[in-house]
């Protein structure tokens, strides 16, 4: 408010500042708004409409009202299994990913020998298409003759059953997903570059130890990055697809334990030609993700710190 009065007194002002901001804001955002109108509006509305129809992708859709949604919740056991697996994966893997990525970024940010080599190594897995990585993991995580079984065999044990039994399948996939956090590490590293050195210097003068500097300087400055990571990993985890799809052939074996939401969605769309049903699944996922995201957005006021100020 104070700035508004101050600027209002400036001379040579024809438009009000608010109007000018709106015009500038729209101008700067115009490529994206145009892109949304051309590439996003139609596919989104079309899929929303399909979700109320029986539609195979080719024939004209026939309107069926809420039938797809009702069937999902009342008749479809695989849908419920997929929901459970996906939520499990999200709840377990997201905190782990944040802790690992943040922690590794802190270590990779320290001035130590071989920093470049380490950074390269941690980034490597993200360069490979997930499909190729999944194929290698099949080789490694094979219970008897995979590489992973070798140390267990040395102790005369067969080792865990990894993806072949229901108890191990989900944790195994959580473990594998942690392999590709290289991009998140980069993100945190970029965030750590942004921490002004004078904040640390000031803390040093106050005699702060490592832990209190971490808690009072590093973490607050990085909360916008954590916020980004949290939101995108919620979206990513709820759409977990390529790795389990390749490693189990999309079967969901054993006992539906590897059947994830987007795998089941994909199968409905392209195996069973139930595009309408798949669209209903997609919109449920969309609504669910949106609600979770909005809750996180609301909570952000309590824990995300923007040096540039908030609204």
């Amino acid at each position, binding site marked *: 408010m104070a700035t508004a009065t101050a600027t209002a007194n400036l001379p040579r002002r024809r438009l009000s500042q608010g109007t000018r901001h709106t015009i500038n804001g729209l101008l700067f955002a115009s490529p994206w708004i145009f892109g949304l109108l051309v590439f996003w509006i139609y596919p989104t509305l079309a899929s929303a409409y399909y979700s109320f129809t029986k539609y195979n992708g080719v024939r004209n859709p026939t309107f069926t009202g809420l039938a797809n949604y009702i069937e999902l919740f009342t008749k479809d056991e695989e849908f419920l299994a997929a929901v459970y697996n996906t939520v499990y994966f999200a709840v377990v893997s997201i905190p782990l990913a944040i802790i690992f990525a943040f922690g590794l970024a802190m270590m990779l940010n320290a001035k130590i020998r071989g*920093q470049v080599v380490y950074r390269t190594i941690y980034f490597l897995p993200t360069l490979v298409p997930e*499909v190729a990585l999944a*194929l290698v993991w099949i080789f490694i995580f094979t219970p008897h003759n995979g590489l992973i079984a070798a140390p267990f065999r040395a102790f005369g044990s067969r080792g865990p059953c990894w993806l072949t039994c229901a108890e191990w399948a989900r944790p195994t996939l959580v473990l594998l997903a942690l392999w590709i956090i290289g991009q998140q590490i980069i993100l945190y590293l970029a965030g750590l570059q942004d921490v002004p050195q004078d904040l640390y210097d000031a803390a040093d003068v106050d005699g702060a130890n490592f832990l209190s500097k971490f808690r009072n300087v590093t973490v607050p400055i990085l909360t916008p990055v954590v916020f980004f990571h949290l939101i995108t990993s919620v979206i990513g985890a709820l759409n977990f697809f390529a790795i389990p799809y390749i490693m189990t052939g*999309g079967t969901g074996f054993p006992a539906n334990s590897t059947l994830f939401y987007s795998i089941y969605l994909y199968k409905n769309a*392209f195996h069973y030609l139930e595009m309408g049903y798949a669209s209903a699944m997609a919109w449920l996922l969309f609504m669910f993700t949106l609600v979770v995201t909005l809750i996180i957005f609301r909570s952000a006021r309590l824990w995300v710190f923007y040096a540039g100020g908030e609204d």
Partner: protein
Amino acid sequence: MDTQKMLSRRRFLQVSGLATSAALLAACPAPAAAPAADTGDSGAMMETKKLEAWSRMTDLAQESIKEIIDIYNEKNTIGVEVEFVYIARTAGSQADEKLLTAVAGGTPPALHYADRFTVPQFAHEGFFTDITDFAEAAGVTKELYFDFAWDETVYKGGIYALSFDTDTRALWYNMDIMDEAGVDSSSPPSNLDELRAATEALTVRDDTGAVTRYGFNPIYDQAWLYTWGFGFGGSFQDDDRRITFAHPQNIEAMQFVKSFIDEIGVEDIDAMLAACAGGNCRGENDYFWTGQSAMTCSGNWKVAQHHRYKPDTNYGVVPMPGPDGPAPHASWAGGWSWAVPFGYDDVESAFDACFYLCGPEGQLKYNKDTFHIPTIKSAAEDPFFREDPLHAVFMDLLPVSHARPPIPLGSKLWDLQVKAFRDEIPHGLKTPEEALMDIDEEINAGLEEIGFFS
């Protein structure tokens, strides 16, 4: 800050360089994951019309199809040029996303290579064009083809594809391993007790009890629910075209399979299936060719692989063993076909090319090149198909081979039976009877809904 500016240009180049080399490495275990760019000759003349033929075949099969297309391009009198386009799929997928998207978008290819048992489904859903008129004008009749192949290309009286090849299933065994293990390789298993005994004798385990060489895996390769069910004298569809997986003989077959699996150890069976996910055991990496499995239920195409990969090892083929002796009727015939996708405008030209590919000339060349069997009865009588004694065994199975029920819910049915056969029954999640009844219930309800029986 300056000393550790992490993303300098130099660093960026390093990372990009690594990206390149990493991708090079990635390409090697996963050739199927990268879409092959088509290098084909683009210097075509303006007046010839180009037709695209989409196929997911690689290796030998792709080479052979390309050669047939070249011959057709030379010979055809309607002034068209067919171009082979390799369509990569998501590994492990049965779906044809690219075809579905192209048909939905109104830009389909002229020809599509389709797994024949999915043709009724694609026809039902409107993805393929009814080519009955062209086929009749060209003199295509039911009598020319084997029944099972014909039935799969016809939906509600219309012809939707022409069949290209077929195959049969039998028991392959590695005679060298048998001799070494002291199992008489001149009298391979002829009934289920002998199969179990041979499996036991040929299996090798390490100190932890894990199998290091499989005698036989009863739920791997072409040993499917269909194979065992037919072998026990069961059937999968009744006269009203209802699905009958819970046929008493099929239940009995699955009870046998379950006890067989328990004998070997379900974790060992699982280990092999897990290792071979994602197509990791294709071609030369097949446990049978590496000698890690002494016997396998498989098809005649393995004859071509035998010549290619292991010409110096001795193998034998016999009909699948059944409960009361040899069960040649355990074999079922699969195969592929060519169809004209819906929405392609010049159906006449597309059919002309299709008819050449699937006619006697195209079929003979393809099936000789790749060791499959023509679906045109007269072509299958070519002496070539009996020259190799192993292949001759498969030819003898042709008259007694069954087919999978041709229904418009083919993909759903396939997934359900794989689930019952490789997950629910082996892991004891359901009894064989429950698992099979659940399949019938779901599929028949689905068929009812789309008016299949009316």
